[in-house]
């Protein structure tokens, strides 16, 4: 019983200690917003990585910048606008829909539409080609002959 008690106390203590451990980040709220925003942003050094996953030094600096902007109570849109004003639409994984990015957003659907039209036209053409012409009298006679045998 005594040992159990000691074990229990030490267990509680360890819990307390765990809570005392140094947090990974200073402010979890800021950090969760940082992760949320930076997943939408592209790292400019390694262009296939998001700002949240990149280990490039510039990404570190940009995360610091975003953190400061979050602390200054800027909205997500304001933060993205700031980075776009410095690095261009390229930093956004989902660029705004505007005349300049129309081709990017709608181009694939236009190509799909054109392909669909061509496919329809082609199929219609084929259908006209393979229309059953029926058997001629001579052929019918031959078929009957063959079936009889």
């Amino acid at each position, binding site marked *: 019983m005594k040992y159990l008690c000691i074990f229990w106390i030490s267990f509680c203590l360890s819990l307390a200690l765990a809570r005392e451990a140094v947090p990974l980040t200073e402010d979890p709220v800021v950090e969760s917003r940082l992760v949320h925003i930076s997943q939408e942003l592209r790292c400019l050094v390694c262009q296939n990585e998001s700002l949240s996953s990149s280990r490039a*030094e510039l990404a570190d600096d940009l995360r610091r910048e975003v953190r400061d902007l979050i602390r200054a109570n800027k909205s997500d849109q304001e933060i993205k606008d700031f980075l*776009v004003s*410095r690095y261009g639409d390229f930093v956004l994984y989902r660029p705004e829909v505007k005349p300049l990015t129309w081709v990017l957003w709608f181009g694939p659907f236009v190509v799909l539409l054109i392909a669909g039209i061509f496919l329809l036209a082609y199929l219609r053409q084929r259908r006209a080609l393979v229309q059953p012409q029926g058997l001629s009298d001579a052929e019918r006679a031959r078929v009957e002959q063959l079936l009889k045998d």
Partner: protein
Amino acid sequence: MKKVFIPLVLFFCLVIFLAIGLNRDPREIPSPLIGKPAPAFSLVTLESDKTFSPEQMLGKVWMFNVWATWCVACREEHPVLVAFAEKHQIPIVGLSYKEIQPQDPAAKQSDAIKLQVARERSAVWLQRHGNPYTTSVMDLDGRVGIQYGVYGVPETYVIDQQGVIRFKHVGAVTPQLLAEKILPLVQSLGKS
């Protein structure tokens, strides 16, 4: 007979698109800062504790060049800039960008010591390779770099009399680029 050529034509279209697409430098991102006022800042210079800010250059056409002693491409670019500065009376301001890198032993020191180390290192480097800059400003934490959209050192900007950014180049400046683009631009800006 015509139909035979359709795939061929499509194939050549594809080849042309790929040829253009694959020959473009993916690192070259159009800067949204062209035509915008150069972001304001105030930083101490390499030479003294006096601060420099872009407003001091109002009324002049000047070049802003981002460099660092750790930057390999800067070493390639530097003689070109030195020769250019000797030949032409165009002020070039240097931005010593993040001289102390995070992996640098000096990075753990206080800001004052970091500034001192960075200054010493940069001064020695400029002494050895020549100094094309009218002044260099010390951007130790890279914040001014972010204001200017720096993502690869070296970078070069041309800023006009009104303090508007007119041109940006990412990567080492070549004699050809200076002669064909930057110099005509600076000269035409100087006339207006």
